[in-house]
Structures are given as C-alpha cells and as structure tokens.
C-alpha cells in the first residue's frame, strides 16, 4: 500500500477556538479511513482544509509524496480530492443528471450534450452500484439517493479520494446498509475514502483504520481490528464512557399513560395513525422502534396536543386529556423532549434564560401578576446550567450559538425540572456525541428509578434495546410487534420495522393492544 495523503502538523485557528492543533494524518491508498471525534473536535475543519475549502494557518499537505497547496475546492478536485458535505449542495429543481454535470457540462458547440451526460451518469452508476434515477428531480428523491448523487458528482469529476462528512447522520438504517455497499465497491475500485463520524459502531463495521481527534488534537491512529468500541470511546472523550447504560431491575407500577384506538392524519391529510393503542406504566420505559415516517412523529404530536386526532382517547392516569390544549397537558404532568430541537424545542433567537422559561412563564415563582420575574428566571437558568452541565459562556447567550449537544441539554434540563409524571422522549440523542448520549441515557434511567413513565421514540435500535423495558415496533401507522426487554433481537426488530410479516420474525399474534403484565400482552416468547 502506498500513502495517498499525508497532512503534517496542520494548525487552524478561529477567533475563539484552536480548531486544529498540530494535526498529522496519514491516509493509505485504497483504504476506508475513519476520522472519529466528538462534535467540535475539529474533524470537519481538517477535512475542509484537505478539500481546499479552508487554508491552514500552519502545516503542509502531501499528495502521493508531493507537497500541494489548494486554493479552492476546484483546485482540490483537480488533484482528485472531493468532499461530500453533511448538507448536500444540490439544486432541488434540477434533475439528477443535471446536478451531476453542473460545472462540468459536456458540450456540443453552444449546446449541452445531454445524451453524453446521461450515458456518463449511467456508466458511473452502473460501475459502482450507485442506483439513481437520472431523470428524476432532486427535490423528489429520498435523502439516500441525494447522497448517491453527491458521490456520483464527485466521481464524475475524476475524484480518487472521497471525503464523506457524517454521511450516515441523515440516513435510515436501510440506507446506511446501502451506503456501506457503495463504500466497499469504491474501495474495490481502488478509491480512497475518508469517513467522518462520531458513531463507534460505524467505525467498527466499515473502516480499515481509524484516527481519533479530541479538542483539535490527534489522540491516535489504529487498525480498526485492533481496537474496540470502549477503547475508541475513551480516546474520543478522554475518560471511560458507559456505552450501554446499565439499568437496575425496577418493577412497573400503575398505568400512567394510556392511548386507546388512536387515529390521525399526517400533514398531507393521509392516514398516519391507524388504530394505535399502548400504555406506559410508572417506572417503565417503553421504546417505540421504527423506520422514520411510520407514524411515530404523528403519535408524539397527538399525545402532546400539537396535532388533532381523528378519533381515539388519551388518558393520563384517570384523566382524559384527549381534548386538552398542549399547555393543559403539560400542567397535567406530560413532559416532552421533541424530536426537532431547533424547530420545536428551542427558540433559537432567545437567550438561554428565555428558553428555560418556556412553559414556566405563567407559574410561580416566575409569574408576578402580569410581569415576569427575570431575576428569578436568571437564577433558575444558572442553576439549570450547572445541574445539567450545559457548556455556555453564560445564560445570556442565544440558544443558536450552542452546539447541538448543549442545546439538547437545555431542553432536557427544562423538561426534567418540570418534574413530569410522564415523559415523551422523541429522538433524544439524535446528532449527539457519545458523551452527550451517555448523559441523556443516564438521565432517562434516573427518571425511571423515580417511578416516572417514559415513552421513548428512536430510530436507533441500540438505544431502544439498551433502555426499554418493553419495545413496540411501528410500521405504517400501526403497532406491529411488542416485546419484553431481553426478548427482542435487532434482527427481529429490523424485520418488523421493514414491514415483514410477524410470523417470519418469529411471532404469532396481531391484537391491536399491547399491554404489560398479567394478561400476557407480551406477545413474544
């Protein structure tokens, strides 16, 4: 194997941050090399430098042993280095083919040679197994295919070294599988891939070697087969991390949340919930597994009052909350960690003080007649920041200036301090790094120990399996399976999530209600 890229002592400073502190990285030709690190560790900055998007303050880059200086992305692409960004850079109203040739259009005199373009796309797509529909508009195709378009775009420019910036963050588990196939095909064809991620499992599954970054410094490089997840996590975070949270045995109490025969429509007016019934007991975590878009979102919104139901009933204990406003449900003891923290969970242009106030603004001690007691709110914010270890220069900064993990901590602090009897946690760890995930998981387990009822909705199977006392699987607006903790395997859940018949998954029943306890509602065994 020969060395494809060598980055030596790269330093990059930003006004308040030393993003890369004498980083050295060697990538061999034809390998899948993972760049692992927490959010803000400097992975993306380093790769922006390699792809010509940013210039290093110090250090040098050697490509096949010769020093290079990239003045732009185009310059890097000419040298065979291309990057697929986390946020795709495609024109939504152009077709797949038009997007791929954009900036590099085959011409015939004055005109575009679309025939040649299409042939080229077909040839590339065939060679690497990158299935795309060349004539579909980009806005109409799923995210996974958009990503393939980005990769094809790089390949069509003759790129040999491809940088993928957290490519799995936006993908469903199924699409992740497909991406792996593509990555392996590219490696077979002699391409070099640099794979940025903060997910340990992905490193183990797909990469040949891994380099760990922390606080802008290289913690080490290793052959993937020589390291395990725990070791990588330690390098990444700087201490031992609990990857799979341990939960004490805890017996479930009375029923806290009961959903009966719920029907609802989605934003387009199509049926999204088709007769969903479930219950969550005190001291119990019920996990809902499922591929995105199978009604989980609508279920959460209907329970919390953000979406109207067609029919059905929602009970908190004995209290029927079906017709209550979101605020009344909140006061009745329903907490909610929303899946979209930037749209729902926080007002991004509010200070942390104002964000901590949300939902508390009408209750003592913050409400003083028609006024708000900001001294009290400030005290509450400082306290919450400390209790939940929110990394911020202070309570006055705007929420949008915090990292994703710290934004999530603000939401969690606020919802936990509401002391809800029932907590709906939707995708509580999406986009977070290992240390933050550990924090959230431990928080949920702590609530469980306090006899709270928790409904956990997650796309991450490992999260569902680690935390839940019972697991429900949602598919096309219905609950298609129910398991007790320890009885479900990822394979069984995966099959159900993909819509396979329950018999194939090893189960047998199909009653609409899945209950815990004496009536034997655990449908598998």
């Amino acid at each position, binding site marked *: 194997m020969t060395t494809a890229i060598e980055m030596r002592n790269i330093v990059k*400073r930003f*006004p*308040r*941050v*030393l993003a890369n502190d004498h980083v050295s990285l060697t990538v061999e030709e034809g390998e899948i090399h993972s760049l692992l690190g927490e*959010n*803000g560790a400097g992975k993306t900055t380093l790769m922006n430098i390699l792809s010509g998007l940013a210039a290093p303050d110090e250090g040098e880059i050697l490509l096949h042993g010769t020093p290079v200086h990239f003045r732009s992305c185009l310059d890097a692409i000419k040298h065979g280095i291309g990057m697929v960004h986390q946020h795709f850079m495609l024109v939504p109203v152009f077709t797949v083919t038009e997007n791929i040739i954009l900036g590099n259009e085959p011409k015939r005199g004055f005109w575009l040679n679309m025939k040649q373009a299409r042939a080229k796309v077909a040839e590339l797509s065939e060679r690497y197994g990158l299935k795309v529909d060349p004539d579909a508009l980009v806005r109409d195709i799923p995210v996974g295919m958009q990503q393939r378009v980005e990769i094809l775009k790089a390949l069509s420019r003759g790129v040999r070294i491809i940088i993928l910036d957290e490519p799995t963050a936006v993908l469903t588990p199924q699409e992740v599988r497909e991406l792996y196939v593509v990555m392996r095909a590219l490696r077979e064809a002699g391409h070099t891939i640099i794979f940025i991620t903060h997910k340990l499992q992905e490193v183990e599954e797909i990469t040949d070697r891994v380099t760990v970054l922390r*606080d*802008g410094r290289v913690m080490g490089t290793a052959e993937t087969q020589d390291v395990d997840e725990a070791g990588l996590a330690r390098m990444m975070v700087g201490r031992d991390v609990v990857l799979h949270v341990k939960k004490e045995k805890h017996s479930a109490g009375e029923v806290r949340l009961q959903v009966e025969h719920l029907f609802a429509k989605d934003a387009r007016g199509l049926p999204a919930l088709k007769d969903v019934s479930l219950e969550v007991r005190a001291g119990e975590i019920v996990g809902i597994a499922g591929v995105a878009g199978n009604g989980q979102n609508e279920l959460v919104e209907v329970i*919390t009052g*953000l979406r109207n139901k067609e029919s059905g009933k929602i009970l908190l204990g004995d209290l029927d909350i079906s017709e209550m*406003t*979101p*605020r*009344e*449900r*909140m006061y009745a003891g329903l907490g*909610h960690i*929303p899946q979209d923290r930037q*749209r*729902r*969970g*926080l*007002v*991004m*242009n*509010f200070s942390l003080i*104002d964000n901590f*106030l*949300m*939902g508390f*603004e*009408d209750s003592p001690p913050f*409400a003083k007649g*028609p*006024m*708000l007691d*900001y001294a009290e709110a400030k005290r509450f914010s*400082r306290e919450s*920041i*400390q209790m939940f270890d929110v*990394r*911020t*220069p*202070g*309570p*006055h900064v705007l929420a949008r200036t*915090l*990292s994703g*993990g*710290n934004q999530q901590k603000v939401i969690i602090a606020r919802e936990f301090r509401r002391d809800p009897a029932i907590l709906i946690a939707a995708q509580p760890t999406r986009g977070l790094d290992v240390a933050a995930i550990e924090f959230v998981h431990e928080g949920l387990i702590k609530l469980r120990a306090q006899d709270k009822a928790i409904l956990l909705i997650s796309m991450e199977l490992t999260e569902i399996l680690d935390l839940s006392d019972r697991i429900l699987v949602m598919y096309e607006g219905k609950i298609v399976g129910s398991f007790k903790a320890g009885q479900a395997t990822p394979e069984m859940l995966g099959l159900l999530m993909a819509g396979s018949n329950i018999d194939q998954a090893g189960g047998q029943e199909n009653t609409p209600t899945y209950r815990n306890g004496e009536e034997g509602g655990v449908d598998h065994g």
Partner: protein
Amino acid sequence: MDKSKRPLEERRFSLLSLVSPIQFMLGIIVAFIAGALFLWAFQEDAIRAYSVLFKGAFGSKRYFGETLVSTTPLIFTGLSVALGFHCGLFNMGVEGQLEFGAMVAAYIGYAWNMPKVIHLPLALLGGAVVGGIWGAVPGYLKAYHKIHEVITTIMLNYIAYAVADYMIAVGGPMKGNSDLPASPKIMATARLDRIWPGTRLSAGIIVALLMAVLVWFFIFRTRIGYKMRAVGFSADAAEYAGINPKTMTVWAMALSGALGGMAGAVEVLGVHYRFFAAFSPGYGWDGIAVALLGLLHPVGVVAAAFLLGMLRSGSITMQAIAGISKEVISILTALIIFFSATNQTLKPMLEGAIRKHNLRGDEDPAQEKKHEG
C-alpha cells in the same frame, strides 16, 4: 458558572450592546453622504442644502418645536410597527388605524361634553380602542384563516381612507359647519395642552415617550410580551411550550393597531383640534421606516422618530429658503432606510471584532473552546 467568570461575561455583554447604536449611526452617516452625492449630481449645493435643513429643524424655537411636533406621531407609529414585528407580524395598516383613531378621538372631542379629567383620557382611549379593533381584524384573519397580514392591512387602509373622506364630505356625518371638509372643532376639555409657549408642541410628546417606556416594559418584561416574542421568533416552539400562537397574533395586531390609533388621536387632540382628510402626511407609512431604523427597540424608535421628524420639519424650510424641493428629503429618508437595512451585514463583523478584542489577553482559547462545545 463559577464566580470568577461572571465579570467577564457581563463586560462582554455590555460591549456587544454597543453594536446596535453604532449600526444606527453608521446608517445615518452613510445615507447623508450618499444624499450629498445625489444633490451634487443634480447640480445642487449639498452643503448649503444640509445647513438649511439643520437650520430649519433646529434654527429657532419655532422650528425646533415643529421638529418635535412631527416626532410625536412618528414615535407612536414606529412603536406600533415595532410591536407587530416582535410577534412576527408586518403591520402595514398603521395609516388606516391612525385615521380611525383620529376620527373617533375627534368625535368624542366635539360631540361629548364632560370635565377635562375624563374627556381627554376618554378621547385618547377611544382612539386607541377603535384603532385596536381595526388592527385586530387582520390579526384574526391571519391567525384563523391564514390570510397574510401585509395584504389585509394595506387593503384596510383604503377602506379607512374612504370612510374618513365620507365622514367629512358635504353631507357626511362628521362634517362641521365651516366650508372646510373637516369635522367641528373639539372642545377645550378634550385638548392636549401646549407645553412649550410659542410652538405647537403639545403634551402629546409626553404621552408618546411614556408609551415608549410602556411598550419596552410590555415587550421585554411582561408574560404576554414574552409570549409574543416567542411566537415571533418561532411559532412552532411557542406552540410546543403551550403558547397559543393564534391568540398572540390577534393580541399583537390589536395592540399594534391601538398604538396606531393613538397616533391619530394625539395628532387631532394636540395639533389640529379637528379631523380633516389629509391630516396625516403618511405618518403611518413612515412608522415602518422608524421601526426598522430603530432596530425594533423602543429607544431606537424614539431616536429614529426624532431623526425623521427633524428631516420632515427641516425639509419645509429647505424648500422655502433654499428652493430645494422637499422631495430631496424623501430621497434622503429612503437612503437612510436603505443603508440601515443593508448595514445589517456589519453586525456580525462588529460583534466579531469585539469578541476578538475580548479574547486578547485575558481569555484562554482552550477554555473558550469548551464553551463552544
């Protein structure tokens, strides 16, 4: 947050708070320079024009009084537009709300007879309430029928103009006895006192400044103001927290309309003592400029209202003495708005410079980095 950190944080906060005033001043200075270039392009003597302009605005007691007379309604209309913006609403209907406020205040002023302590507040309140109702209509249509407020408020302006014309036309219900197309004069008991002898300046300016303080307090310190700001920034997040965006939308438009109504009422009760058709030279429209130039903050609104009031009164003298058309002032006003809108791009640069300044010396970059997370 440990104690050693606190002073630093407070200091950075105070330095950053200078960004808005700097932005405000820069917009004006650049606009005046650009305005001078315009004047030179049309063979006018810009220096002379500006000096006459300033003389016309500040040169004598009477001139300065007129500046403040123009400032008064602009404070109200600027506050009206700013309050709407804080709830994410663009109230383009201030002109119509102002017409209705003036009409009702005038009616109460001439038709009812009561002691001053009741009459004057009632006339003001009447103007505010009817302006508020006129504002609540587009608020309701926006909240419950998703009809955009920019369209409805502009359309309602035309209705308000037409109603106003009808009221004081020959045979109209509010037509006075004089030959003028105007209402009867209001009673002395409904008038705002002149507070500066030798000028037309009334106690209306005190009411205006009081409202600026009240609006600041309302937006930044009350529960309902907090809810409106939440809805303004993110209706989805507000809804999640149990705030009803629809209710807030109606309230915000109603309060914005009430401020517009007060502008008209104060103009009638303090300056003209009667209602007539073209009593407002576009104060409602200028309110948009005042709000934007004032960066939606009540203090900024007062400053911006003063600036535009100065331009308005100065331009009249400029036309009379220097023979320069007062449309030049319209150009200058437009330039000020243009540059204060475009210099939003300066904000990140200014903030970045201050952060860099803070970083120098007393802050450890590694420490900072942790904050970034």
